[in-house]
Every structure is written in C-alpha cells, then in structure tokens.
C-alpha cells in the first residue's frame, strides 16, 4: 500500500493510494493561492488599475514590458489569473481507477485530472458535492470569462530571480494554468457516479469504498476503503461542531489499519464561534453608522450560517430593514439547492421538513425580500432594488475577480464602509494589496469549522488507528505563528508524514484473502481433529476467479486429484511398527541398522533403502509400484490429516 502526494497544500488535498492493484485518487483540490499575485479583473475598466505603473526588472529584456505592474511597491501580474493544478508526472492519471471526492471544495481541480489525460475511471461523490461543486466551478469560470484580458502574460516566469518578494518565492509558476471552461466542467463531471452516505461501492471487485458523513459542509464525507481484511480511513475536511450539515460519523472510522488525516483547520488560532459573533457585531455596527458591509464569500457553505445568524442579530437590534444582497451568478441555484438537500442536514434542520418548513431560514428571508439574490451587479432589477446602507455577500473571496472587485473599488474610499473576511482560505492583507490605499475598514473574522489540532488529537485518540498518516506540515507550527507549538499535531506516537511529490509506503502487507467455498466441496472435506477446537484437512480444489472474486469448487479432473497428496503425515515414526507392517505386506527381508540420529532399513531383494530420522523418512528405490506400496504402508504408521 503506497501513498503518492500530489499537492503541497493540506487544505487542497490530492493524494493517490495504491492497494491490491487498485489506484485510488483521494480528492483533487485546487490550489488557488497563486491568484493573489495577479491584478484584479474589474467588471468595468478601472481607471485606477489602468494607471498603475508598469514594472520591469533591471536585467530583463523589453518583452516583459506590460506583464507586471506596481501598486504600493507590490508587483502584480497583469494577466488572466492562473491556478496551480495537482502535480502531474508522479502518477499516470490514465491508471487511476476511481477518484474519491470528500467535499465540493476538494474537487475543483477535477478537469485537470480527467480531461485529456486518458483518465478512464469513475469519480465518486455525493449528490450535494456534485451540485454545489458544479456551482463553485461554474461561478469561477463565469467570473473569469466575463472579464476577458487581451494579453496573457507568461514571460515573467523566466525572470523569477530578478523579481522582488513575494513573487520570486512562488512555487512552480510554469505549471500554473489558466482556468478551465464550461465545456471542461461538463466533461469532467460526466465521469461522476453519485453515492449515498454508507453506500458500499465496489471497485474492480477488489475493494469496497464507502462515504461517511464528515460534518463539515453539505454532503461532505470521509472515505473508508476496505478489503475483506484491511481498512483504510481517509479523513478530509471534518467538523465536530454543530452547524447546518449532518454530524460527523465517527464510529465508522474506528479501528482502521491506516488513518490518513488532512484538511485540518486553516486558521487554528481563531475560534469559529467567537468569529461568527464578531462578524455579526461588526456588520451591525457598520450599517448602523450608515456604512455598507461587503462580505466576500463562496456561493455555498458558511454563508448559509451567516445569513441565519446575521438576520437574527439584526432583528434583535431592530435593523431588520437593512437589505441583504447575495450577488453571484449562482446565488439562485445555491439557495434553491440548499433547501432540497434536507436529507444531508443536521437533524434539527431535517426535522423542519416534517413540519412543512424549509430547512434553511434563508428560504423565508428570500420570500419576504430581506435577502435578495442577483446574478450580478448588472442583473435586471439590481439597480432599482439597491439601497444603502446594505450588506452585500458576493464572490470571489480572493478579491481578484467577481463582483467583490467592483464593490471594493466603489466603496473603498469611505471609512464608514467595511469589508469582512470570513473565508479562511485567503489572507486579507494579501487580498487587499492591489486596492491600496483603502479607507474602507477591513475586519478579519475567519470562520473555519473544520477540526483544529485539539479536536484532531481528541478524535485520533478515540479512533485508535493502527497507523496515522498526516501532512508533514502538521508537525510544525504554522509559519505565521512559529512560537505556537500548541498549533501542531503533537502526539505521543509520531505519525507517518508526507509532503508534496513524495511517495510513502504505508507498510500494510496483506496476509489473507476471502474466498467462497462451494457447498459440494465443503461436504466432501474429511476433517481430522488435531486437538479440541482445532481440526484440519488437506484440500485440493479448483480455484475460479471472476471480477477479482474467488470461488473454490470441487475438482472434476480425477487425474489431477490422484497426483496430489490427499494427506500429510506428522510426528515421529516407530521403526518397529514399520517393520511389522512391512512383514505383513510380504516384505520380510528388512534389515534394520541403527546409527546415531538415523535408522536405515534395507530391503535387499527389492533394492530399497529407507532412511528414517527425527520427523523425516527417505525412500530410495527403483520401482514405482513398490514405492507407492511403501508410501502407503508408511502413511499408515503415521498420524496424518
């Protein structure tokens, strides 16, 4: 059993595991951190961005002209943004039998794996993962495609060493790629096979994989990969907190031979509950003083909890009339889908459907017009609905594309406005860098509900895996807080670790395989009792294989059976007993010769020598018939099975 790591970002996992000649990919997350090095894509041509001075390194040729621009002494790439797909080359994607997707955040690199690589396998995920994942991918494509750039900058990649920080430190920019298209998404998703929680899916007849609830987001799961004798658990993006999704199923993960654990909390130094509180307070403060609140967000996920908590909070403060706008090409779809996936929600949300209520309160908020979804700023009706002060939820949290770019430009110079960062993935200073100087107030309240190190340690001690495998990074404090040794996965027993482009032998060696025994064969077996509770029999049978499943059936071929021993002798031989039995069979000329450690019986007339020592007998003769006779006599003298 081997693990190949194709991603250097534990929160954008992409690993491959080979086991029993099956190749499984565990998640294919897309590392989007590269986009922060690019200039934002404004909806309408921005005068400010257009007038940023170009920047050229001293020793570079003039071809770099216009590829890089400077804003407040940070250098940005003036090009459609590029993203870093999982490492290729370590694993041939054509060999992958199945991709197991844990949640919609961990599938965004799918087109890079499935398209044009010869991929022939299946992609397994739950229905919400598929639908919400599609919403995420389509939103990304829409954002990038609706603001096309004439020029694609790539020459800067050859001058990395001449560039200032942080651009000179980026990893493998030559592997970065432009975003995929709508067609790519459809072709990638055509490989998807929908699974339910706790549905056992057969992979090539050799393994069973099962998705079990992970409590992190709508339809999110952990995976169990099991053969008849071995169990591997893959835990990615899990939460033990109570939010809207169905709670984590811990029992199924117990007692695995190997537990791979990844995608722990992005921002372990922030408590999600208190951040949610701070978020509500900050928004209320902003709108009460007449400012607008901008919440850059993804089209699904924690944003549902934000709607719910914020509307309650505003109600309590008598601010119910402040409008909330949800601006995304996928806003309407996201809201609609969230309310039909009740089977995937927490029991309290699920319980609402039995009273004919929609599971999420945002259904009610939209019906009453407090929360208004719009496709974009230009969508019909937005300008007539738009009132200030207001709260706008919109993408993209990187602030490089999407309607958020426009709102920052529009509201940036007013200190009464606030931008609230709740998505933990992007650093807020990085995100805001190309918009500086800004008067707008940034509020950082990252809400990541996934396991922090304390929760992970507790979970590990409950699950008791045989071996634990984690990204190497988790054994060191985060780079942003090097002194916080509590923010590591320090365990009594050091786990196995992996890092990008590494191959790790998980050290699981199979010893047994399950086989079916046909009833006819079982009945014909002649069991001998060795001691109470232990009996045994020699077995010769036909082994049939179909779809990697084994069945033993009786052999029909008499000839083959007669050639195979039907019993095996054990223990020591009594020489006297043998001589007596030989005589009974008419072989009366046996001469016994006792030597140290060995006894030799010679049958002079028959040209036979029998050498007997502890637990072994050697018959030397030149007549097949006689040899078989001697063999049978010998076996009668010994215990056998």
């Amino acid at each position: 059993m081997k693990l190949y790591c194709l991603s250097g970002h534990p929160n954008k996992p992409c690993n491959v595991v080979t086991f029993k000649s099956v190749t499984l990919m565990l998640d294919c997350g897309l590392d989007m951190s590269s986009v922060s090095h690019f200039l934002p894509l404004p909806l309408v041509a921005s005068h400010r961005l257009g007038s940023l001075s170009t920047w050229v390194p001293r020793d570079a040729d003039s071809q770099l002209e216009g590829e890089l621009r400077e804003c407040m002494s940070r250098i940005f790439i003036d090009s459609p943004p590029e993203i870093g797909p999982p490492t290729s080359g370590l694993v041939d994607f054509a060999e992958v039998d199945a991709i197991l997707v844990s949640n919609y955040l961990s599938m965004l690199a799918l087109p890079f794996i499935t398209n044009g690589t010869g991929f022939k396998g299946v992609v397994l995920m739950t229905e919400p993962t598929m639908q919400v994942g599609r919403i995420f991918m389509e939103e990304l494509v829409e954002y990038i495609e609706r603001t096309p750039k004439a020029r694609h900058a790539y020459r800067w990649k050859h001058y990395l060493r001449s560039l200032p920080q942080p651009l000179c430190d980026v990893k493998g920019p030559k592997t970065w790629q432009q975003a995929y298209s709508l067609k790519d998404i459809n072709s990638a998703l055509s490989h998807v096979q929908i699974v339910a929680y706790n549905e056992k899916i057969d992979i090539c007849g050799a393994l069973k994989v099962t998705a079990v609830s992970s409590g992190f987001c709508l339809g999110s799961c952990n995976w169990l990969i099991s053969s008849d004798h071995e169990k591997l658990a893959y835990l990615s993006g899990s939460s033990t907190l109570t939010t809207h999704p169905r709670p984590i199923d811990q029992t199924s993960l117990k007692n695995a031979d190997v537990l791979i654990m990844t995608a722990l909390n992005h921002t372990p130094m922030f408590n999600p509950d208190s951040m949610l509180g701070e978020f509500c307070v900050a928004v209320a403060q902003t709108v009460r003083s007449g400012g607008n609140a901008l919440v850059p967000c993804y089209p699904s996920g924690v944003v549902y909890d934000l709607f719910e908590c914020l509307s309650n909070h505003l109600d309590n403060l008598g601010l119910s009339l402040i409008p909330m706008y949800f601006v995304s090409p996928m806003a309407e779809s996201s809201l609609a889908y969230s309310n039909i996936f009740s089977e995937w929600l927490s029991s309290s949300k699920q319980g609402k459907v039995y009273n004919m209520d929609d599971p999420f309160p945002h259904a009610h908020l939209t019906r009453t017009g407090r929360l208004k979804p719009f496709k974009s700023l230009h969508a019909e009706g937005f300008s007539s609905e738009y009132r200030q002060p207001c709260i706008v939820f919109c993408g993209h949290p990187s602030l490089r594309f999407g309607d958020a770019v426009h709102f920052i430009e529009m509201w940036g110079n007013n200190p009464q406005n606030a931008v609230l960062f709740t998505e933990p993935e992007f650093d807020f200073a990085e995100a805001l860098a190309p918009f500086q100087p800004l008067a707008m107030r940034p509020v950082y309240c990252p809400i990541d509900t996934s396991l922090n190190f304390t929760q992970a340690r507790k979970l590990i001690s409950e699950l008791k895996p045989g071996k634990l495998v984690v990204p190497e990074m988790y054994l060191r404090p985060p780079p942003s807080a090097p002194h916080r040794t509590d923010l590591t996965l320090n365990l009594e027993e050091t786990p196995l670790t992996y890092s990008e482009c590494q191959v790790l032998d998980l050290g699981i060696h199979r010893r047994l395989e399950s086989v079916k025994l046909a009833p006819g064969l079982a009945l014909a077996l002649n069991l001998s009792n060795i001691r109470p509770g232990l009996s045994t029999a020699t077995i010769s049978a036909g082994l049939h294989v179909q779809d990697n499943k084994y069945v033993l059936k009786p052999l029909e071929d008499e000839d083959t059976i007669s050639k195979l021993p039907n019993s095996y002798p054990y223990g020591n031989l009594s020489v006297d007993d043998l001589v007596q039995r030989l005589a009974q069979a008419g072989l009366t000329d046996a001469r016994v010769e006792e030597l140290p450690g060995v006894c030799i019986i010679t049958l002079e007339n028959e040209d036979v020598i029998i050498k007997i020592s502890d637990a072994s007998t050697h018959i030397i003769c030149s007549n097949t018939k006689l040899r078989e006779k001697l063999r049978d006599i010998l076996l009668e003298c010994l215990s056998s099975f």
Partner: protein
Amino acid sequence: MPEIKVTPLGAGQDVGRSCILVTIGGKNIMLDCGMHMGYNDDRRFPDFSYITDGPLTDYLDCIIISHFHLDHCGALPYMTEMVGYNGPIYMTQPTKALCPVLLEDMRKVAVERKGETNFFTSVMIKDCMKKVVTVTLHETLQVDSDLEIKAYYAGHVLGAAMFHIRVGSQSLVYTGDYNMTPDRHLGAAWIDKCRPDLLISESTYATTIRDSKRCRERDFLKKVHDAVDRGGKVLIPVFALGRVQELCILLDTYWDRMNLKVPIYFTMGLAETANKYYRMFITWTNQKIRRTFVHRNMFDFKHIKPFDKSYMDNPGPMVVFATPGMLHAGLSLAIFKKWASNANNMVIMPGYCVQGTVGHKILNGAKKIDFENRTSVEVNLTVEYMSFSAHADAKGIMQLIRHCEPKNVMLVHGENAKMEFLKQKIMQEFNINCYKPGNGETSIIPVSIDLDVEVSLPLLKHTMALPTSSSSSSSSSSSSSSSSSSSRGNNTEENRTKKQKVLHGVLIMKNNNLRIVGVNEAWGDLGVTAHNLRFTERIEVDETGPVPALTSALHTLLSQKLGSSQVQAVNEFQLSVADSVFINIQDDEPGKTILLSWTHQDEGLGSKLLDIIKSNYKKS
C-alpha cells in the same frame, strides 16, 4: 439447509393491506403494515396476534415501510401504539413526512365523519412516527450486527422504495409497489444485479401489458378538451397524493401548449400540502424536474388555481380536481351532486374504486344514485375511467426479475388468478421457483449458502501463478506429438475449465473460523511437526555419452515439457525442477543412472517427471 420463511398477513393473493412477515437468517422482519380500504371492521387491520403470543417488540427485529399509501402503512399506529411495538421502523424521508399526513386524514374521516371509536388518535400517530428511522437511497443501514437493509428507488409515488435485506449470505428484495417506466414527475424503479435468494414482488398488473402511456395521456387530454370545448364542466376525483400531481403536470403543460383559458382548480388543503412536499423532495422526482427546478418548479402550476366552494355554481366550463378519489364523501361528492344531471359535464375516475362507493356505482353504469338523506341524483354526465396507477405491468415485473437475478420469486399484492398466470410464465422463462402464498399461509424457501473461507495470500499467489489446469493437458502431455493435436481437439473442454487453477493446501478450522494455508505454512499454525517424506527413484538408462551431455539433453527435454523457467541446471550433473524436485545423474558404466528425488508434497510433479523421463529414456 437454511431457509427463508415468508407469511403474508395481508396482500397474499389479494390487493390491499400489504403486511408480510419474513424470517431470514434468524431475523424476523415485517414488510409494510397496511390496512384494507374495503373493510370497516376488524378485517381492515392485519391479525397481529398471529405473529407471536408474546410482545411484538421481542419478536420482531424491525418493520420496513415501502411507501406512504395507506394500504402499506395504514395499520402502523394501530400496531405500534395499540397492539404495542417499540422496535425500529424504517422508511424513506418523504414517506416519513407524508405518512402522518395521510394517517391523520384517514383518522379524521373514520372518527369525525363515520363516528368510529376505538381508533388511533393524533397523539398516537405522532408517537408512532417518533419510532421511525429514515433511510437514504442506496445507503447500507445496519439494523444490528447481522442484519442490513438497503433502499432502492421504486417510482410509484414520491419516496417509494424497494428494500434489499441481507443477513450474512442470505438476502431478499421486497419491491413494495413499483413502476418500471418513468412518468412526468417520477423516475423508473431501479435496482442493481444483487442476486437475492428471494424477490418478493407486487403483481397488481400481473397480466396486463398496458397500452402505451402516451396514448392514454392523449386520450385523457382529448376527453377533457372536448368536454370544455362544448362548455361542459369536468370533475376529476383524486386522492391528494400521488396521481394528482402527475395529472396536474399533464394538464398544466397541455393548457400552456394549447393556450387554453378555461380555468383549472384543485381543492385546497391536502393537495396543496402535497405540492409543497413535492417541492421540498425534488431529489426524489425524475431527471427532468430535478434539472430544471431552480428556474421552473414543475409543482408551481401556471394554470391551476385553488378551488373555492362557491365556484361550483359558476357558469361556463371548468376542470376541477377534488378529493376524495372514490366519490365516497367530501367535496368531490358535493360537486358531483351538483353537476351529475347535466349531460354536458363529465367525470373522469383516474383510479380504482372500492365496492360501495359512488365511484364504484357510476363506473358500473348506475343511472340514478340514492343518498342516505333520501335525496337522489340522476347521472346524466359522461363517466370515464382511466387508470393512471403507477404499477409495473407484466413486462415490467419480468424486466425487474431479469435485472436483479433472484434465485426465487414470490408474488404478492395481486389477484390470485392473474398471479397464477404470471407465476407460470416466470417459472418457464427463468427456470426458478415462484411462490404465491395466501394470507396466513407460510412459504418456506430453501437457500443454499457458500461458506466463506480465508486463504493465505502466499498460497493464493502461488496458485494463481500456476499454469491453468484443463482436463486434457495432464493426460496428453506424455508425448509431444499428440499433445498439440489433442489440445486442439479438446478446445471446448479447455474453455470450460479455462479460469480454473488447482489450489492445494491445508484447511484449518479453529473456533469455527475457516482458513486455508499452504502446506508449509500449516505446521506452525497447527503446532505439530511435519514428518517429511522424500522419495528417490533410480532410473537406469542406456546413454553412453558423457554425463554433462545427458544433463543438458534432459534440461532441454524438461524445459520443452514444463516451460524453461521451471528447470534449472545446478551443475554438470544436477538439475532442479521448480526448486523442489532434484535430478542427479551418475555415471554407471556402461549406461547412466538418473536419480529423481521429490517430497511427498510434490508427488504430482515427481510422478509427472518420472513419466517423462521413463518414456524418453527406456532401457532396452
């Protein structure tokens, strides 16, 4: 021989009151708990006292409800709250949501309209539903450590499911009611090739091959359209859940396409509730509805408006969907009384009507209906019957059997004579047993089981690496000239055993755990010492050349026969075959002696080599 025992307490050679008791692998399961719509007395509920003398909770491991129709779940509160059962009840989420709505509606009719006492109460329905555990489609749900159940999509009505039940290596599938063709709002039933020991299938339409659905729909639309064209009013009595949604979608899209302005109404209350549920359970509807629901929800009807009692007397044409479906009470009957005398009007009965109802009477051609309060009404309007029930027809049932490959079939939920016909057909076409027990009659279905054993991986790998065994090769390998021709002649024989490898090892049974290991591995596991048996046979041959020449000739010969990878030269006078049989050549002027040595375990290879050497180097 293990067996599966099945006793229908209802739906045995009968449509209605589905309730089937199953014993499989020592587990007792009740499949559905329905009531009979045709009875008002004790016969309406299954006879639970039949099951056991003791408490039901001790006897039954679980109850499974296939869908929300009352003939499948109507007796549930009676059983759990009045007879007494506290164990788990399994059903899908939509069934759990809709079941209490229908139960409550039925309770109201029975208690408030008919004045029945000793009926279950609203509180009992609520308490009963608290015992329900929901199952998701395709999820394998572990009832206990031995018993697992898995639900499959059944079509029929929203949330309807088929259940696969497994205990160890024994399994059965219960279909509930199902539909093998997709309709306007639901998909078709689907199950994988799960090869159960027994398939218990409904057989409502055991002998019918229904005319194409499209024709039936066109017929329905034409009749409605003609009636409103001539200024008539059309009444369609329906039950609130199930077919009414199908007909509403049908009529709504038709009105849209034909640009018709005649009003369509449905009665408030239950149907509206139902539509709301349908919107929430979109994932249970068909592909098309699921794909488009964000922008257009099929259950937000464009042309269909809520009905008010006062509309009854409005002039001009209209179409009204009204409950209940058999014209036995309520609004549908009230409207019928108003409209029946006008020959321009029409009533379309879209489903089955139980004897004694007004629906049943008019379908049988009654021209005058008398009511209890000594009023009566002339039946002048056109009466049409059109079945829109979503059950599998004979073709669909056969299709399901073909698809899941059961070892036995049992038919329930059908009429005896029709079931008999289908039973013969199934036995003929699939060559498997088919059962159709009556109510209270027990069928015992013997099942064969394969034993599971564990085989050590080294032994398995060794066996898989062996050349494939076939009956012809071992016997004909003695002479090379005949082997090629005989293997060609025995081609079919070889094909038959193509995938067979010969496994030879030791089976060890320790505390009822079966394991097969290689002979050499077995000794340690058994804790006994092997007695090694070695044989050496001397073969004298006439060869006069030097020893190395004979060694090399033998090497060539054996490589040809066994494959070159099997034979190794140790030195000039020694060969080893498959690392286990050794050949020594001694100079024994004037001829040579070949010493062939092998262990008891390699008897097969040893005697084969002996044959080869003897037949090639005969001493004259």
